[in-house]
């Protein structure tokens, strides 16, 4: 018993430490960029905001929205990855690998380019719809096997669905070349230039999904122990699966509607969290949220610092980090427990 308390104490300390790191990253996100600002500038800005001062305006209008968006979408993507890995029972099963990003982007592109609507409040629903369609498609394809879902099948199904949606998107863009510029940032994935209004359109969905997921941690623990055990313990498997699916779709689709195709966050974060706290979902959820935010903040800061004055798309940075990680996990053969 005392052992358990000690362990939990360590995990709490770890979480507090991560939150401190997160705060430092948030500050850095305000400070560093093409132009660096001192802490004093940020303090002045928050205490005595002056609408004439260009420094204040840049921090408030440019850096601050970026920071907030990175924190929220990072947390959501990390959580979406955790849920999808649990749902597919596969260490590689993150939204981008499963083609959910591509499905979402395809629907957004159809909506913006073909139907010419730019109201983000409506686009969000299309992002959800695309994510849902891709997720259901992949899940059905992954489970047609007589031997149940095998880990490779579902990934291959994801790759196929991904390729399909990507080429459909390309065909639409080629046929409507003038719409290209309106949707290019969604395809490259970036936080640069996104405004807080865009975040507010999805914020209620993301926050409620994050909170619900945290409350579900206990049920997720039971579900993770295997379907037959969960059934034996009285869990309604179908309801659980559906809930997880909806949560994943909302978290992934909602983030994509704001920052576009940022891949591999959902792959890396759950593995990192699991290596820190093991398989207890009560801890995994909170760690995934904090780690996801930190990861996306750091990635976003590095997009500005690597090749100034030009910016590298955020999606490129996450793919650079994520692809080798994917190879590593694939090589390990998915022996890590999910």
């Amino acid at each position, binding site marked *: 018993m005392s052992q358990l308390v000690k362990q939990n104490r360590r995990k709490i300390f770890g979480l507090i430490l991560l939150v401190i790191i997160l705060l430092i990253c948030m500050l850095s996100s305000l400070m560093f960029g093409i132009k660096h600002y001192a802490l004093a500038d940020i303090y002045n800005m928050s205490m005595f905001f002056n609408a004439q001062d260009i420094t204040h305006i840049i921090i408030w209008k440019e850096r601050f929205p970026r920071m907030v968006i990175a924190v929220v979408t990072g947390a959501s993507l990390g959580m979406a990855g955790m849920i999808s890995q649990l749902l597919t029972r596969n260490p590689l099963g993150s939204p981008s690998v499963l083609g959910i990003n591509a499905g979402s982007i395809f629907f957004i592109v159809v909506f913006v380019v073909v139907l010419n609507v730019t109201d983000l409040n409506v686009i969000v629903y299309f992002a959800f719809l695309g994510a849902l369609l891709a997720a259901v498609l992949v899940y059905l394809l992954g489970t047609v096997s007589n031997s149940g879902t095998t880990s*490779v099948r579902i990934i291959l199904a994801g790759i196929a669905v991904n390729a399909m949606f990507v080429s459909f998107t*390309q065909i639409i863009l080629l046929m409507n070349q003038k719409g290209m510029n309106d949707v290019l940032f969604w395809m490259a994935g970036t936080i640069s230039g996104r405004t807080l209004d865009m975040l507010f359109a999805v914020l209620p969905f993301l926050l409620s999904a994050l909170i619900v997921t945290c409350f579900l941690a206990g049920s997720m623990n039971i579900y993770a122990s295997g379907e037959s055990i969960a059934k034996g313990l009285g869990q309604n498997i179908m309801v659980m699966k559906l809930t997880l699916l909806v949560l994943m779709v909302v978290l992934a689709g909602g983030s994509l509607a704001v920052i576009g195709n940022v891949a591999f966050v959902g792959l890396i974060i759950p593995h990192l969290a699991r290596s820190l706290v093991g398989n207890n979902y009560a801890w995994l959820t909170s760690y995934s949220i904090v780690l996801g935010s930190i990861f996306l903040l750091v990635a976003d800061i590095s997009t500005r610092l690597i*090749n100034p004055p030009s910016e590298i798309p955020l999606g490129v940075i996450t793919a650079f980090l994520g692809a080798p990680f994917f190879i590593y996990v*694939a090589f390990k*053969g998915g022996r890590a427990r999910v």
Partner: protein
Amino acid sequence: MSNRWIVRSKYEKFSFFLIKKEVYKTIAVLISLLLVVLLGLMVGFDIIPFHEVINYTFNLAPIDNEFALGELRMPRVLSGMIVGASLAVAGLIVQGIVRNPLASPDVIGVTSGASLGAVLFITYLSSSMGIQWTPIFAVLGAIVTFFIIYLFSLHPLITGNQIVLIGIGLAAFANAFIMYILVTSDSFSSERVFLWMTGSLYGVNWLQTISILVSFSSLFFMIMWSQRKFELYSYGDAVAEQLGLNLKRFRILFLLFSALLCGLSVSVAGGIGFIGLLTPHISRKIVRHHTSLLFITTAGIGAILVVLADWIARIAFHPLDIPVGVFTSGIGAPFFIYLLIKNRNSF
């Protein structure tokens, strides 16, 4: 009476049999290829009559549409043919070596590796060395990718499926690298790269056509020369070794063939997806028994598919010229899904 032919050399140095039906089917494939090529040459924005095509090809008489046929359509159709054949044969080889029906050079990242090699060259070296060296670097990119995959495959516990997954990761990495180069390089070279990357046969010239024609023919000859090894390997590692096949050397040799074929086609047409995955499945339905016939039908069907896809991409959305790669992926991805459903019990 008999359904097969037996072929023997004079002193029985070699002998083999051919199943008549498969020979006829192979010939049918080649005839369809000829028809598709004719279609591609004759029908476009305007129609060039058959006798003009013949006159031009065999240099019998001067024709009216010399520019449209000789400078635009002919190089495009011919290189489409070679690109399709190379990708298809490369796919057949990769599927055979990994022994996985879902593997192909573009799925396991070799196409992306080749693209990366070419993009690196075009961006950083082409201005000093000249653009004509692009194929060398595309081939280098393909070879490096294959080498990495080969290193992974040396691990004793690794399965064919894991190799496919590792290749998918390599593809993602190479694509991210390409995106990075596109974003950071100056707009002049990134425009050039972008034009080339879309997987298009638009604007292929005679020099490129001739060079891939020559290299493909010599590679295909070498593959046919050693096709018996390929057949032995298909019996499984243990049997093949018993029958005297050096597994390691075989794998390296054939992966090299595949990398060369891939690099060549990528250097001309960019990344045309799914031909390498799709074609071997069709050709294995047509030819079951004889590997050299299998190689020929695979090359033929690959050529048919790319020429046909390029023709549709050229015609269907006129005046837009859709890159053929977009088109093949649009058809190829649903086919991949079909394969997944069909092979639902095998993995």
